[in-house]
């Protein structure tokens, strides 16, 4: 079984409160939950909505058709009523958000004791419980959500994954300038810093952020900087400096639609080639793309590992959909131990000689460049020790979906029951050797951009071309819905 609940209302009225607690209640009941957030770039008013999906088996995305609409205002009804399935239920009301939480819990048949227990751990619980009870008693039970065997599930979004991964890697300093959708990592790390040793530092702009990050990283400290599109552009001069000066700096790049300011609070995968190519000159980097909060933790650790082992920049590329959606995670992340041999010595933004001083000597310039270039082979060899890609589904199928990053969730849900395999690329640079697996297959590309950037990278790295007709691209700022994606994929199977 699987259900979708859409909770909508003006910003600041509580759709997030209802959604998150409902998610916690369902996890407590033993279900797998996923919810995504659709919100505008404003603080009060406007129109926000979350879609919460839950199931008795693992799920990682939303469907487009909904079973229950919880509407906090009239506009929410107008906007979303048509998404309701034939027997879908509308729960509406201008009452307090805990009232509607009670209403939807009753509709689903969740016992009130679950709500009580949950709210008791939160602020202002007495009033909230009272309101929730009113809502609970005013609605009828329409479903019977029975308790399933309790699994150990953590309810995480990608941003928490990034933050946990960094702290587990021994993060000492996180530098940032606020920018959606990278800010939740800053918030998370700042909150965690109250109980941990690391510091979060906000500076005047992304240029200061990357250069302060470099200043700290050359002492051997574990440092991460975080930003989104335009902020990353500002950092690219510093990124290039880390390339020549051999600075072990980890970059967190949370994508949103661009170019320019783009669409600040929505999602996209348009910055893959930016991450791979940003910065002038030729230098090595590692670019890693997690597809869920567990991978976020693991790949941040691997980013630190590569940065400190090879004295290179690492870029962890995520997006708004991964960063701000909540996933029920039942696996434990596997961490790699990071030993840093970096120490404060003579670093240089110029080509340098054996004393660390600037040089214009042609022989030394060439040697330096060859040394940087040859690192690629070492990095590639080291990367093979890690899971550079994952294969899901039928290994023998002649159909293979290829994707990266946050589309993983929708793809996994979409391919259920289909004769197909799915390759999720985790290492974008260095790129995994997948030629043998994908040659002669019917390749279907799924990406949240308009040009199919992974398709281009695949062509560059493997020589294999994905047909234009086999590129399923969404670029309206919204993530894929699993049910819609399934139809798109089905139409391309051979």
């Amino acid at each position, binding site marked *: 079984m699987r259900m979708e609940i859409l909770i909508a209302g003006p910003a600041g009225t509580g759709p997030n409160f209802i959604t998150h607690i409902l998610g916690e209640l369902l996890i407590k009941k033993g279900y797998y939950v996923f919810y995504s957030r659709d919100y505008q770039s404003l603080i009060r008013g406007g129109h926000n909505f979350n879609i919460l999906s839950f199931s008795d088996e693992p799920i990682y995305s939303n469907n487009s058709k909904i079973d229950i609409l919880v509407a906090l205002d009239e506009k929410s009804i107008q906007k979303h009523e048509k998404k309701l399935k034939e027997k879908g239920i509308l729960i509406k009301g201008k009452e307090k958000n805990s009232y509607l939480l009670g209403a939807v819990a009753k509709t689903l048949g969740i016992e009130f004791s679950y709500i009580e227990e949950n709210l008791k751990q939160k602020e202002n619980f007495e009033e909230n419980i009272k309101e929730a009870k009113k809502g609970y008693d005013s609605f009828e039970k329409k479903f019977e959500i029975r308790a399933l065997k309790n699994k150990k599930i953590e309810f995480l979004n990608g941003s928490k994954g990034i933050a946990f991964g960094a702290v587990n890697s021994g993060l000492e300093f996180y530098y940032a300038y606020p920018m959606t959708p990278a800010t939740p990592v800053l918030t998370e790390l700042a909150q965690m810093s109250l109980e941990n040793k690391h*510091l979060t*530092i906000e500076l005047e702009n992304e240029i*200061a952020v990357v250069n302060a990050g470099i200043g700290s990283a050359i002492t051997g400290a574990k440092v991460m900087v975080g930003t989104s599109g335009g902020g990353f552009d500002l950092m690219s001069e510093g990124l290039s400096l880390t390339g020549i000066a051999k600075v072990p700096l980890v970059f967190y790049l949370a994508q949103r639609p661009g170019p320019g300011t783009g669409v600040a609070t929505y999602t996209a995968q348009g910055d893959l080639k930016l991450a791979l190519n940003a910065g002038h000159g030729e230098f090595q980097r590692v670019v890693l793309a997690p597809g869920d909060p567990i991978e976020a933790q693991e790949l941040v650790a691997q980013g630190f590992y590569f940065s400190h082992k090879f004295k290179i920049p690492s870029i962890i590329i995520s997006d708004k959909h991964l960063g701000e959606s909540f996933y029920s995670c039942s696996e434990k992340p596997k961490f790699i131990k990071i030993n840093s041999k970096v120490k404060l010595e003579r670093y*240089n933004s110029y080509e340098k000689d054996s*004393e660390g001083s600037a040089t214009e000597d042609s022989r030394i310039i060439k040697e330096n460049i060859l040394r940087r270039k040859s690192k690629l082979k070492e990095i590639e060899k080291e990367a093979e020790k890690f899971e550079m890609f994952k294969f899901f589904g039928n290994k023998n199928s002649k159909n293979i979906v290829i994707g990266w990053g946050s589309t993983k969730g929708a793809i996994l849900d979409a391919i259920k029951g289909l004769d197909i395999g799915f390759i999720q690329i985790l290492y974008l640079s260095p790129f995994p050797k997948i030629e043998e697996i994908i040659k002669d297959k019917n390749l279907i590309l799924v990406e949240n951009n308009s040009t199919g950037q992974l398709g281009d990278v695949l062509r560059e790295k493997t020589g294999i071309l994905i047909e234009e007709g086999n590129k399923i691209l969404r670029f309206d700022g919204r993530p894929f819905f699993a049910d819609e994606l399934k139809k798109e994929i089905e139409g391309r199977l051979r």
Partner: protein
Amino acid sequence: MKNKSLSTSTIPTWCPGCYNFQILAGVKNALKGKEKNTAIVTGIGCHGKLFDYIALPGINTLHGRVPPTCLGLKIAKPELNVLGFSGDGDAYAEGIAHLIHAARYNSNFKYFVHNNRVFALTVGQPTPVSEKGFKDKTNPKGTKTPPINPIKLMLASGASFVARVFADVKQVEWVTKEALKHKGFAFIEILQPCLIFHPDKGLKEKTYMLEDEEHDKTNLEEAMKKAEEFDYNSINENTKIPLGIFYQTKKPVFEEEIRK
């Protein structure tokens, strides 16, 4: 007096007689005995070559990015002496936002600006402190904007130590030692004529030391008045340029505050 322990094998490529040699010698003298616990950060321009002539760890970083780099070093290693060096292009053009914020943060690093009032290493274009009407090949009709006054800017931005000296070994050595004694961000501008592109002949003769007068360096208003005596624009027979410490005060230090 040469401090050989800080020397590298690089042969300096500054022009013969360049005032940068005076600055280099002054800084090296002041760092005697501090070699083990000091890092330097330099920017891009003639001043930046200083990195190659002082055998200390640190980074010869990007143009304009010296202050945040110093900040990052101090945040990671508060016990380290960190000295940053910039040119006027570095500090007042490319990186001026960082300069203002450096004064606000009050991190305990020392920031020296080699001010020759010209982009020298790119062969003589005007910087934000070049006089109005400055002519070069890229400005054949002369520049149209007056210079900023960096001393006033730093005082207004809340810098806890604001000084200006001439590029003279003794003055640089003295001010470096004073800056190192100061706990907090120290801004030191060094007037450094460029023999090739901005010679400023006779500039030194127009200077006088605030320390020789009854200047109250704890008084911000007094410091502002002194800062206004020289506008970086017109230098004539009446010009008097005050040097020394304009202002010094105690303020909370960034790398300590963020750990509280």
